[in-house]
């Protein structure tokens, strides 16, 4: 699971995908998670970091993470394992 290489994210959470011309915005938690996925961190590691920093629980985070990931896939911002990388 990787963010497509040419997808760019700004500090304020503005995402641009040059291959489609589409742009998105993410909230601060979204920026952190997006960057961690981009850095190649695994879900277990991401979860640990989020639970350490924020007042939430494992179940809630896992549910929200999968939901967020679903949208990243839907918006074609990540490569799934079966697809070739850009």
């Amino acid at each position, binding site marked *: 699971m990787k963010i497509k290489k040419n997808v760019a994210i700004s500090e304020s959470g503005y995402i641009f995908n040059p291959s489609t011309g589409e742009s998105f915005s*993410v909230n601060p938690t979204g920026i952190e998670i997006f960057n961690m996925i981009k850095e190649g961190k695994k879900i277990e590691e991401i979860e640990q970091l989020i639970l350490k920093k924020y007042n939430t629980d494992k179940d809630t985070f896992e549910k929200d993470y999968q939901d967020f990931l679903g949208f990243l896939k839907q918006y074609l911002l990540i490569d799934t394992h079966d697809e070739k990388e850009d």
Partner: protein
Amino acid sequence: MEKQRYERPVIKKLESNMPNKYGMRTEYQPMTHIDGVAVADLVKEHGSPLFVMSEQTIRRVYREAKKAFSTRYPKVQFAWSYKTNYLDAVCRVFHQEGSWAEVVSGFEYDKALRNGVDGSKIIFNGPDKTEADLEKAIQHDSLIHIDHLDELYSIIELSKKLDQRPKVAIRINMDTGIYPMWDRFGFNYENGQAWDALNKIMRSEKLELIGLHCHIGTFMLSAAAYASAAFKLADLALGVKKKYNHNITYIDMGGGFASKNTLKGSYLPGSDVNPTFDDFAEAITSTLINSDFEPDNLPLLILETGRALIDEAGYLLGSVISNKRSSTGKRTTIVDIGVNILFTSFWYDHKITPAQPFTQYTEDTTIYGPLCMNIDVVRESISLPLLNKGDHFVIHHVGAYNMTQWMQFITLRPKVVMIDDKANVHVIRKGETIERITEFEEIPEHLKEFDL
């Protein structure tokens, strides 16, 4: 180190559609306190959901309405519309402010009497008054507003039986240029029914005709319709004076003033576009003053507005049960408030604000109630901050009709509290219990036992 408040990650596609000048503002601004009392404390102490009435808001809005009329017209009297909210504590705030009572059933009539309202200050409206109701109203010298001829005949008979002269008014329906025209209550102005009823009353010599009443519609978005109604009632009153040399003591313009809620399908929020008390007052009072009434002999103007006086004072506090996605990916949120207690969500896009601070990130959300019924939708589409399970929120402007039209359906009805002007919280209706509901039931002997 204290952990930071968690907000679920969201991503929003930026789309350059046609700009939408009608978009409603997202309610980022949390409502953490009501009249100085923390929402979190209210929920902790009294549970969720919870209706909250603000006493100071009731008094403030009432005084605004009173001022709008009494600065324009010398003789004004409000009568509290019991059906809008007949919790005794609420009624008593209005009675303390000087409102009479306006009731539409024997049940409401008894409630007004129990609240200590003098019978002569109870207006009895509505199509269903039993003989016993009418007899009681006559004996208490109440103002009976006649809806149909059968009732008129009953009152004439009762006046003979009781040897009393009942005080009556008739309800008039009329074309005021609005749709739908309410013509099911009372006697029609245009086709002569009204004059027919007036002639019958005057010729009977058994009844004291003291007023004329109308109630032209509900949630009226046009103040001009009231000018038209006031003109027609004034015309009848002046006609009675001319024909019978009889003075009509009061003109009762009923209610129907829109509150600040937003009707479904409305482009702009109700708080911006609905007419104000000043608009309604200007339309009604200038018509009466400009009519042919002698300036020193103007009739008393009675107003029975309910919704516009009480809606703003009512809040409904609730909690998030779960966040889900629909089959199309749309965010849906299940809350513990359903249409069984928030009846008005069928008519309004209620304003909903979070009860704790959030960032400015939002999602378009459908808000579903907790009932296992497909119709249980509180808001079909609302832009809300990212509420988590267990978070509280406040639904605004719920004071009218919800606490009378609510249903004991699937679940029990919640408590109602009132916050007084010193920030004291009073329970004004206890939460229902299963025992209170089942005590009305009886089980036939042959159904008492079963084996499974």
